[in-house]
């Protein structure tokens, strides 16, 4: 039961990852699959910019273009950004609070596999009769009219992966509530843990409306229900409400963990405690809270009436206040610090002006009458790419460099990292800054082509050129990952030298039980406190060395998800009428899913114990420094 990495065959490694319930391995699964979908979504983005590089381009047909924008948005939000953030939450949050694993390791694995199979299912639409083509918002009247199975792939795929995300959210909430190490009070939790906590709460309350909306969509399209069928008394605006009641918190589900990552980075690389920690925490909570009260600002032009528009306009503006508090506290964190411009830090530094630019255009769009002009124009495309790329993607890239050593035990190249940064950062601003003006010049979004007589040619060409630079940046990152993995120079506990929180007090990567002895936390930035006190071990312990109880691995989460994946195909083709085998596929899939759930509940799974002797063996093996 030693944690020292043993040379394993390829098949054994695959099996290990399929059955793992270890939060660190699940994090790697999330990172790999999220990264893969990020590349897919990026490829789709490049196709969009090629199509729009010149006026009247016929590189893509109108129908294909709509499929590509739909899949670009859906993939980037649901299958790339969120899973990669879940990867960091999984990898780091339990370490930050001094836990040995998450509260429900089995469900953690189930959450991943549901997301994974949902994402694969959605993307298989490309090869099975066409992708969804009603935009990532999937507005109901267009979605109901869409031919083929694209929209069904969207509804069922997102339902499955949405269950996975919901499970992950509940799991993180319980972990943070129940599994904090002694002394880790709420107001001593690192900011990344706090943002994980609030984002998980948002997941918990925001995903059910989406699931309900998707079910309505499935029922309407497949079983003849009439939620959105206007001639049957239905109402398509219900979809818009349900989607945005989910959709706006979703934006904060993405941006809050990004804020968390940047908060960690500012503190580490300024070698300084976060300025106004308490204010940052409450700003996070407030942003999460307001996130549920502003959804209708996505619907200013729907015709909800001036009262609703005015109320939602004012509510939306208020969000600028806690966001501003965050920005100024970060600025004051680096103020008076000792700034080291490592790759994560330059991302964090670059994030501030980028995100402020995205934030101020957000306030402009909160002005409802002005939004009548900006809504559904390229201005909004520019705005949300400024917050999502300038906020979330920069955080993902920063987090990848920051946490790579903790997850894999080796550092990404700083030199290549900076090359990635410059290409990506310049390309990003080149691509999207100019789109604000395209919008103001009257260019609507989601147009597959534009006429040469409208004055939009030059700016679109510049925008496409910027996209190429971003692509080069991402390619350099891939090279960096490959080269780093080949070199595989091992690093110690605290590779950045200025780590402040518990994850930097243990080996990189940590042993599978994380902490041989549960740490005792004495304050905010507990590892920094111990370092400053000259404690060579980096932590003090809350318990003597003793047996550790750990959960068993299991293939059941994989099988449950596989069953739902299979059943979805059955459901999808069942109502074509001419495919009698589809019913069989549906039943087989459901039997697999419910059968494996039954096995899980009938078979006692009590886990196993690592004995004290084995822990001592590990410690002797020099595991504390990762070798």
């Amino acid at each position, binding site marked *: 039961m030693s944690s020292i990495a043993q040379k394993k065959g390829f098949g054994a490694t695959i099996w290990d990852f399929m059955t793992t319930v270890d939060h660190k391995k699940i994090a790697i699964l999330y990172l790999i699959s999220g990264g893969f979908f990020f590349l897919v979504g990026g490829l789709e983005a490049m196709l969009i910019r090629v199509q729009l590089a010149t006026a009247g381009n016929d590189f893509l047909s109108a129908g294909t273009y709509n499929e590509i924008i739909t899949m670009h948005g859906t993939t980037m939000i649901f299958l790339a950004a969120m899973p990669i953030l879940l990867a960091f939450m999984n990898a780091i949050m339990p370490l930050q609070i001094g836990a040995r694993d998450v509260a429900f390791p089995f469900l953690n694995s189930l959450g991943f596999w549901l997301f994974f199979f949902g994402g694969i299912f959605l993307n298989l639409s490309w090869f099975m009769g066409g992708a969804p083509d009603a935009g990532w918002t999937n*507005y109901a009247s267009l979605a109901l009219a869409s031919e083929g199975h694209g929209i069904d792939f969207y509804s069922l795929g997102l339902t499955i992966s949405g269950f996975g995300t919901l499970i992950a959210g509940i799991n993180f909430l319980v972990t943070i509530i129940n599994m904090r190490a002694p002394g880790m009070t709420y107001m001593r939790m690192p900011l990344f843990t706090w943002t994980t906590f609030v984002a998980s709460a948002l997941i918990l309350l925001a995903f059910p409306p989406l699931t309900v909306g998707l079910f309505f969509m499935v029922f309407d399209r497949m079983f003849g229900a009439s939620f959105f069928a206007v001639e049957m008394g239905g109402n398509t605006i219900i979809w818009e409400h349900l989607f945005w009641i989910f959709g706006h918190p979703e934006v904060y589900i993405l941006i809050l963990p990004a804020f968390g990552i940047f908060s960690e980075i500012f503190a580490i690389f300024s070698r300084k405690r976060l300025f106004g920690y308490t204010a940052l925490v409450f700003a996070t909570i407030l942003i999460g809270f307001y996130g549920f009260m502003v959804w209708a600002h996505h619907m200013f*032009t*729907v015709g909800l009436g001036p009262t609703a528009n005015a109320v939602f306009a004012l509510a939306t503006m208020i969000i600028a206040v806690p966001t501003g508090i965050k920005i100024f506290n970060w600025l004051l964190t680096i103020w008076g610090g000792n700034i080291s*411009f490592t790759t994560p830090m330059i991302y964090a530094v670059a994030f501030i002006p980028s995100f402020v630019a995205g934030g101020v255009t957000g306030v402009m769009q909160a002005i409802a009458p002005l939004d009548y002009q900006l*809504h559904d124009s390229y201005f909004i495309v520019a705005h949300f790419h400024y917050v999502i790329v300038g906020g979330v993607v920069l955080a993902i890239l920063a987090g990848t460099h920051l946490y790579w050593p903790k997850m894999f035990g080796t550092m990404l190249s700083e030199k290549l990292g900076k090359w990635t940064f410059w290409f990506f950062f310049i390309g990003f601003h080149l691509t999207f800054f100019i789109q604000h003006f395209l919008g103001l*010049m*009257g260019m609507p*979004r989601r*147009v597959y082509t534009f006429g040469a007589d409208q*004055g939009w040619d030059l700016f679109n060409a510049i925008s496409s050129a910027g996209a190429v630079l971003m692509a080069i940046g991402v390619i350099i990152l891939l090279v960096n990952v490959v080269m780093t993995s080949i070199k595989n120079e091992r690093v110690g506990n605290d590779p950045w030298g200025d780590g402040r929180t518990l994850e930097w007090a243990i080996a990189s990567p940590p042993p599978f039980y994380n902490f041989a002895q549960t740490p005792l936390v004495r304050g905010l930035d507990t590892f920094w406190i111990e370092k400053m006190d000259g404690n060579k071990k980096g932590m003090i312990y809350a318990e003597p060395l003793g047996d550790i109880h750990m959960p068993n691995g299991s293939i059941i989460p994989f099988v449950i998800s596989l069953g739902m994946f299979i059943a979805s195909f059955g459901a999808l083709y069942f109502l074509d009428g001419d495919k009698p085998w589809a019913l069989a596929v549906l039943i087989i899939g459901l039997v697999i899913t419910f059968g494996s759930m039954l096995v899980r509940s009938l078979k006692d799974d009590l886990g196993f114990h690592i004995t004290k002797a084995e822990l001592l063996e590990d410690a002797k093996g020099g595991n504390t420094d990762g070798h």
Partner: protein
Amino acid sequence: MMKGIKKWRLFALMTTLLVFLAGCGREEISTLIPAGKVAQDQFNLLILSSVVMLFVIIVVSIIFVLAIVKFRRSKMGEDMIPEQVEGSARLEFLWTAVPIVLLLILAVPTVYSTFDLADVSTMDVQAEDGNSSHLTVNVTGKLYWWEFEYPEQGIVTAQELVVPTDERVYFNLISADIKHSFWIPSIGGKLDVNPENVNTFYLEFDQESSELEDGVFYGKCAELCGPSHALMDFKVKSVDREEFDQWVTAMQEEPTPAEDAVAQEGQELFEQSCIACHATSGVGGTGGVGPNLATFGDRNRIAGYLEHDEENLKNWIADPQEYKPGNLMPDPESLNDGEPFTEQQLDSLAAYLMGLTVEE
């Protein structure tokens, strides 16, 4: 050397100017060149909010630049450990209060304008003669074209909206199929065209479109509605009230039959097939299967976006799916006994259609 720098400067200046000018876009469609009260109000809000936001950006930028320049490790020394400051209640108060003040500056005109732009209470006010004192246009969005009904005048047209300048024009919007959004950027912001309810708002046209280079304002569909969403354009002609009244009168007359032989042949052909969906008289109401063609010869574009010439018209009739994928115009062969239209047939149809006009 100096000369080189000067040239470079001049070049840089010219480029900046060019980008700046291009940054305003074309007057037919840019929100930055407002040509009506609504767009002007919205433009003013844009300028106001940009100024406030620029202030925020400048403040953040100053602190930001100072911080990253002053506190670099190369200056502070490798081993220097900064003081671990906890925070400052005074500063927290400051950067909570100041943004709230800035937001209040924005909030007041926002609320005022939200109610002002939604105020359609004068829509049904009647003048002394019993007619309503304002023009109302019923707009119906269809895949992928626009129908404009003038209920008071008893006329209907499509694809090209004709409106009087310098007065409020009220719009009732509804979709016949999929959700669209009605947007004339240089006249005013958009409003969604929903399938389940009528949305009402007003616009004002303060400039005659004949002053524009292209002679019309450009209108757009701003809500993804299928493959040809990008091509669901319409055009707006704004004329003074007198000219508008003349146009209405002309629309209310019966169309004159085609005169020359080719066009007569075209009319014959049209009345065998196209007439099932397309009316050629401007008199009538909403509900056309295809766009009303009474003003076809007066229009600025074919199919909403192609240059208005016979060549494009013939191409369009011969293969509508090629130019507007997913539109509902029937396959030409189904109208012509299974045969594609011959060149001669297309010529005659084009001649007939181009002759449909209500303007002089």
